[in-house]
């Protein structure tokens, strides 16, 4: 049982190959990030140019021939329309060429599922932190198996918040990584901290950080305080959910999950309650094709695979709308 997954929701065109849950290849072509952000059509052009060669490279790395593939998965959303379209078309064409089924996959579900796959977890609490999203999730079986949103940002995602700050500070926006670099050993400045139960907001924090820069406070101190405040908010909301839902494990996934400081804080929080914390290696928290293959394989091997969704794309695909058909 071999499955190929194609991811193209943003600046990465990723192709992964999975055999019975084992990841054989995870290859990426990445559109270079600039401080101007993403111009959708340019990235889509880039993906189109790199699609065939990235797929060939993944097959080669996995030592798998095209006709050995049993199923194909692609990212249906959420993401940037023109980018998603390239991945969808590549998947449909590839599946048609080998006459095998193709499955649409939710991007956020895939980030969570690949982490669970790597550590053999069944029902952890999941903190999903990416550019556009920040959510606290857990599996709920009613009315159908899905990831229920227990808490989330009321305004912007933590990744976009850190990127907006990076631009203000003249740094490259790279989902928090450039902010993290200058944030080391800063001095803490008090900032707006907004958690409501299991939900939170980030815009007040961003506005305040920008104002502090204008006042002449050092980038290091502001970046440090911004990062500490934002991650503490995420940690607190996740902690409340962990206690309320009595889960045994907590995972963090998505682009911002590559932050060492966030992982460190979550580890301290989880162990203080006797819970286990897991984070996947960075290549699976950055956008990648392997995670799409992992979910496509689960759908393909479940008895209910017949009830498939439309083979479309959905730029605003909510995680709770994706049915976990294998459960």
């Amino acid at each position, binding site marked *: 049982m071999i499955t190929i997954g194609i991811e193209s929701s943003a600046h990465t065109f990723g192709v992964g190959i999975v055999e019975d849950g084992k990841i054989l290849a995870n290859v990426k072509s990445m559109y270079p990030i600039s401080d101007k952000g993403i111009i959708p059509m340019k990235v889509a052009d880039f993906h189109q140019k790199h699609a065939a060669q990235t797929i060939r490279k993944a097959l080669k790395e996995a030592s798998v021939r095209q006709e050995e593939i049993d199923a194909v998965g692609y990212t249906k959303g959420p993401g940037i329309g023109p980018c998603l379209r390239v991945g969808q078309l590549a998947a449909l064409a590839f599946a048609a060429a080998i006459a095998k089924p193709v499955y649409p996959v939710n991007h956020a579900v895939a980030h969570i599922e690949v982490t669970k796959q790597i550590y053999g977890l069944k029902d952890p609490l999941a903190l999903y932190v990416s550019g556009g999203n920040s959510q606290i999730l857990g599996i709920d079986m009613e009315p159908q198996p899905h990831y229920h949103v227990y808490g*989330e940002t009321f305004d912007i995602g933590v990744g976009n918040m850190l990127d907006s700050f990076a631009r203000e500070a003249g740094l490259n926006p790279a989902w928090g990584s450039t902010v993290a670099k200058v944030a080391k050993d800063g001095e803490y400045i008090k900032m707006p901290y907004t958690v409501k139960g299991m939900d939170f907001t980030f815009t007040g924090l961003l506005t305040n950080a920008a104002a502090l820069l204008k006042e002449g406070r050092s980038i290091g101190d502001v970046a440090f305080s911004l990062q500490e405040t934002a991650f503490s908010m995420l940690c607190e909301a996740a902690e409340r959910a962990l206690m309320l839902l009595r889960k045994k494990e907590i995972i963090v996934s998505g682009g911002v999950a590559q932050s060492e400081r966030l992982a460190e804080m979550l580890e301290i929080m989880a162990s203080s309650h006797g819970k286990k914390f897991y984070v996947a290696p960075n290549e699976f928290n950055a956008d990648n094709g392997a995670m799409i293959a992992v979910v496509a394989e689960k759908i393909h091997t479940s008895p209910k695979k017949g009830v498939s969704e439309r083979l479309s794309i959905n730029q605003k695909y909510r995680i*709770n709308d994706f049915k976990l058909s294998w459960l």
Partner: protein
Amino acid sequence: MKKISEGAEAVIYITGLIGREEVIKYRKSKRYRVKELDDSIRKQRTKTEAKIQAMLYNNGLRVPPIAMAGRYWIAMEKVEGDTLGAVVERGKRGERKARHLAGIFADIGMQLARMHALGIVHGDFTPANIIVDKKGKIWTIDFGLAEFSKSNEERAIDLLLMKRAVRKEDFDAFERSYSRALGEEAKEVLDRMHKIESRGRYQTRTLATS
């Protein structure tokens, strides 16, 4: 001092030091936060909680009176009784008459309306945070997430948290009494509640009820 429960934010102890039983709520330090941030959150929240609870008590609402407060802790009188969650469970098993429950929910509606009229939202208004005493009177506890606010959105969330956790007829009794007690303003709160429900996310929201 005996530890009776531990939540995400605080530990609850029972003590008999001052003659009768008292509850001490201690806000824990969180090692994952930098010290300055941790300290300011704990102090600020403890202060707000004590202030709100004392103000409600002084205005005649049934909340545990505060005996003393420190930087990170609040000592208050212990309220004897069962949580509303437990009472509702017993009601489901037929141990209590429906009429009795309707009276309890009317009482809860009135208490919440008076709280909102005073400019305070509870922030975690679930059956776990309501105690029914031996006489059937209700007491609201845990103001850890309470705030000074007259926002319809936040008021509506107080109602919604209760609605999600109880039977329709119980919520109806609660809503009638809330509307009667708050008057004109209640209409706007209920409108907002229906709007929030139609946003979808709260429809299947899971809540602890015990």
